[in-house]
């Protein structure tokens, strides 16, 4: 079974019960130096493993880039 979530505002269909940890793995994004928000709330790195995403969750994956 799959469901839809929004990753950085793009509709994405994923398998149910996926965790943030897995999502990042699928996206090939390193945990180091990023932040993750689910529905506008920051999820601390420690929780990635056990945090299961639900239908229509809005996930934001944020990083640092060049700026002044």
């Amino acid at each position, binding site marked *: 079974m799959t469901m839809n979530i929004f990753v950085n505002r793009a509709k994405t269909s994923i398998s149910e019960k996926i965790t943030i940890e897995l999502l990042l793995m699928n996206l090939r*994004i390193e945990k180091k130096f990023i932040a993750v928000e689910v529905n*506008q709330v*920051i999820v601390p790195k420690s929780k990635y493993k056990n945090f299961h995403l639900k239908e229509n969750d809005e996930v934001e994956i944020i*990083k*640092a880039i*060049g*700026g*002044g």
Partner: protein
Amino acid sequence: MKDKPLVINDKIYSSRLIVGTGKYKSLKETKLAVEASAAEMVTVAIRRVNIGQDKNQENLLDYIDPKKYTILPNTAGCYSADDAIRVSNLASEILGGEKLVKLEVLGDKKMLYPNISETLKAAEQLVKQNFKVMVYTTDDPLVAKELELIGCISVMPLAAPIGSGLGVQNSYNITSIVENAKVPIIVDAGVGTASDATIAMELGCDGVLMNTAIACSRNPVLMASAMKKAIESGREAFLAGRIPKKKYASASSPVEGSVSFDKE
């Protein structure tokens, strides 16, 4: 003569130059320019990861090592206090709980001029949340003082609009800010070339933050070196105490015993 060092968030900095990491051709050029600048504090921006396109996109922080440099995340692109607070918290999460932030709340996209009322609101909130706020602001001396009283650890008035390269527009206000401040005053934005940075330091500022002037010059690594020296030069000139401007000339060579006086 020993200069009292620049202290920010309980850390001593021997460099008074803070550099940004935007607008470079590559992360490699960024790294080389930052090294040439000898800066110890480096600003970064906070943005969404580009899903997909990011495959082997490298991470800035692999080039600018947070163990080696103090990373100063900014809230660039924020036009409200709420956004700025949100971005500050994301930055803290990204940087493993660090609380140092460059607060920047802009009011318009053309001049990128600071929005003072939103900046004041955000500053109050962030200080309450134990952030160490270095705040980008206008050259309004009263607002600068208010931001200090709110608890910002450094006040950073603009020299001129971001990226304009116009240099210090209102030295009168910058001087007043410096004279009334108890926290480090760091000119942020508007520097165009080395002499602009030197002039800011000669006014007594504690440091200068710049990005475009280095990154967009024809030769960023060389300009970074120029800026390093410009900041040191301006600081030393400020401490050394310049000669007064005089209406009339005064000879550098003594007049007595001048051979040419024979004929007089």
